[in-house]
């Protein structure tokens, strides 16, 4: 396989172009959030007070640590420390698991309180609160989907490392999977204060 053409810069550029579409996807929803926050300031405040700050903060810490872990995994593969690279990728996947478990606990509690999209209880609340929770489920839900996709992607990378498809000389796949994971973290960095800490 030594004569296979590899375009490192092209692979990186392609990944970033894809990430721009992700930024725009969430950007559109952030615009929606900004517009409705402007219109229903007080209702958003009431809505946000009902979210679990502890779980939100915990998930922030989990994601930040996972971002460190995948960055470390890339450093290790570049240094030829494959075993450590694999283990730190596993650590990142574990963090994704913890994040999704926390999210499930959080959403279950909301469902328990009669709060889910278009639930009878939510329709009785003010219009602004209804919109707040609508955006909450849409944005954190879509973000959680990205966390799951990221975890699957990283699992494939572990397999690639074990098969030596990713190694000290050729690691752009792991780097690109890492970039995807960091974007997931970046989006959460904004979701967290906007929903849980209520502006």
């Amino acid at each position, binding site marked *: 396989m030594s004569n296979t053409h590899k375009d490192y810069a092209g692979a990186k550029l392609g990944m970033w172009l894809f990430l721009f579409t992700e930024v725009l996807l969430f950007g559109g929803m952030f615009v929606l959030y900004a517009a409705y926050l402007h219109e229903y300031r007080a209702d958003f405040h009431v809505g946000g007070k009902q979210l679990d700050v502890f779980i939100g903060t915990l998930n922030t810490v989990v994601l*930040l640590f996972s971002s460190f872990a995948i960055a470390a995994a890339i450093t290790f593969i570049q240094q030829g420390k494959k075993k450590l690279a694999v283990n730190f990728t596993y650590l990142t996947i574990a963090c994704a698991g913890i994040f999704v478990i926390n999210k499930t606990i959080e959403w279950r509690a909301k469902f328990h309180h009669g709060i889910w999209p278009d639930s009878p209880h939510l329709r009785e609340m003010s219009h602004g609160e209804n919109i707040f929770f609508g955006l909450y489920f849409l944005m954190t839900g879509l973000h959680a989907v990205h966390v799951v996709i990221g975890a699957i992607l990283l699992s494939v990378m572990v397999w690639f490392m074990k098969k030596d498809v990713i190694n000290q000389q050729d690691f752009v796949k792991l780097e690109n999977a890492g970039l995807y994971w960091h974007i997931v973290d970046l989006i959460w960095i904004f979701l967290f*204060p906007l929903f849980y800490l209520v502006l």
Partner: protein
Amino acid sequence: MSENHEHQHHILSIKTAGIILVLLLLLTGTTVAVSRIDLGFLNVAVALTLAVTKALLVILFFMHMKYENRFMQMIVFLCFLLLAIFIGMTFFDLAYRGG
């Protein structure tokens, strides 16, 4: 010289990555602490400033943007600039709309 070595790759040191993680955690703590104090409109400004700072740390170090070539830095900057214009302009429109 093999093709893979035509570019000199910068390797992020574990120590740097660790420092960035600690900074990110400290900024998160600050964000939560500040949100508990009522500063009125300033709460929004402070929370978003801290979030942007965290985002910059992630992009520059974890995503290696500090060590990428000018072209990559330029298009990433442009992308986020466009997003800022998109959100900013929409918001200005809303904020200054009469009645």
